[in-house]
């Protein structure tokens, strides 16, 4: 009897332990994992505004096949690649330069570092609206600055030219992304030991040599994680496109998440929209896998 009640007590203790995590686990299954599976299923149906009430019927991989011959999808795919690589290149290099700068102590460095964070914190809708104004062709302040500096003689139609509109969104997104890159790299730099650099200096290494031969290799784990996160975050961008160009002109700023939104919520082709987000999802899963591998290498399951 006492063994039984002891067993009961242990079982009860275990139940109590699990009661701490069950609500979260249920939430994640119901509102994150189930929707992702549902989305995969949707991408293999023809659900649209006509059959929304009765439910779509199974079409297998037809939506995906259709994407292969969809010129807008191809354009969106290429745009997304250009967007992701350009954004990461600029926000990473500028962020790195700032991290190196703020790795030194100087008067006002703390306040300045905090001020720099603001662009990352602002709602993206606000940033998009703001850059719509800054980049506006006739009265935008950027054109006025460039003209004042003698760099251009005619106003650039940043957001209404199909050659430049994507770069307009890239400028806005780089502005948003710089602080995140700076903070992560600064965190990495601050873990490196001072003595190593002193030793290198004594051995006669110049600052550039120290950076390439010591700093970069030691920061490799941080840099890898940051680049993968950069890919993940920039390939999700939706808000800026919605606010600044809505994919135009001539689909020149059509990015995959936005095209998925357009198909699902403007044309109500839920099947096709789901297939487009399915493509994004496959890429993100691969990248997340890489991210997991890097973070596990880095450390530390507690």
């Amino acid at each position, binding site marked *: 009897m006492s063994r039984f009640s002891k067993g009961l007590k242990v079982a009860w*203790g275990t139940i109590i*332990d*699990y009661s*701490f*995590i069950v*609500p979260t*686990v249920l*939430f*994640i299954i119901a509102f*994150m994992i*189930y*929707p*992702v599976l*549902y*989305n995969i299923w*949707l991408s293999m149906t023809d659900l649209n505004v006509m059959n929304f009430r009765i439910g779509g019927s199974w079409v297998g991989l037809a939506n995906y096949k259709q994407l292969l011959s969809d010129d807008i999808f191809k354009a969106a795919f290429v745009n997304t690649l250009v967007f992701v690589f350009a954004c990461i290149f600029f926000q990473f290099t500028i962020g790195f330069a700032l991290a190196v*700068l*703020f790795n*030194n102590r*100087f*008067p*006002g460095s703390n306040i*300045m570092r*905090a*001020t720099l*964070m603001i662009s990352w*914190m*602002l*709602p*993206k*809708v*606000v940033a998009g*609206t*703001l850059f719509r*104004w800054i980049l506006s062709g006739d009265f935008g302040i950027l054109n*006025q600055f460039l003209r004042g500096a003698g760099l251009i003689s005619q106003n650039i139609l940043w957001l209404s030219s199909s050659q430049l509109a994507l770069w307009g969104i890239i400028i806005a997104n780089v502005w948003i992304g710089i*602080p995140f890159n700076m*903070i*992560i790299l600064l*965190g*990495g730099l601050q873990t490196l030991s001072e003595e190593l650099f002193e030793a290198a200096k004594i051995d006669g290494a110049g600052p550039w040599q120290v950076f390439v031969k010591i700093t970069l290799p030691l920061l490799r784990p941080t840099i890898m994680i940051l680049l993968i996160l950069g890919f993940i975050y920039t*390939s999700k961008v*939706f*808000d800026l496109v919605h*606010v600044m160009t809505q994919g135009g002109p001539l689909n020149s700023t059509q990015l995959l*998440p936005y095209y*998925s*939104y357009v198909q*699902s*919520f403007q044309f109500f082709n839920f099947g096709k929209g789901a297939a487009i*987000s399915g493509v*994004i999802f496959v890429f*993100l*899963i691969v990248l*997340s896998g890489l*991210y997991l591998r890097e*973070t596990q290498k880095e450390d*530390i*399951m*507690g």
Partner: protein
Amino acid sequence: MSARSKRRSIAFCLVGVVCCLIMFFPVYWMFITSIKPMGEIYHKPPLLIPKNPTLKAYVDNFIKSRDVYNYFRNSCIVALGSMAFVVILAAPTSYALSRLKIRGKTLIMLTLLMVQMFPSIVLVTPLYITFGRLGLNNNYFGLILANATISLPFVILVLRPYFLGLPKGLEDAAAIDGCSKWGTFWRVMLPLTKPGLVTVAAFSFLFAWGELLFATTLTSKESMRPITAGIYRFIGQFQVEWNSLMAVSFAASLPIIIVFIALQNQIVSGITAGAVKQ
């Protein structure tokens, strides 16, 4: 040596000031545009400092017309609601994952890291359809649940190290004093992790306040929409009245700016912890 390092630090300071001016300029320009009269907005060359600053855009949009209040109210409800919802779910989970004997801990941690990356665009159509059936479209609770998908995994991961850092043996001492496990968690552990709780509460508030995709798709009634969706509508409505648009945008940024000024150090260390040190 000392003179040289002084010169160096002045040079760094100057470079820093220039970088800050460039990065901060858009925010400055937003505010300055919002206090310009229409005539000065299209002034050539542009006026970096307005000649006749006016609060007209604020008066027009916050006193004469009261359209925006509803958007702000919705944003407050959704952002505070998802903040509360996320912290209530996340705190016990983080605690259990750091200090209780739970089987499959590694699996749960990996799952969290994975779902943290799920883009909203993949979740939005299924949520739209499911919420439609459950009556959760055009509903605050629906928006709160949707926003929780963005912040919950991240918040659990950021909060866990705070529990890990508490001294070992606290639970045993509490158990000797007759505390149950939930009692220990509630009365002993939570008060000790207050800084962490404040940080993650700020994050979940900020994420939800700035969210747009769920805000536009899971609501169809204008009266249920948060300010992010409102700004999108105003872009079409105000067209070239940039002072009005910037005034509403600036007002929508204020809560973010205030939270950030109050908690900048916690937020900065939270970002690093959340991204790199899991």
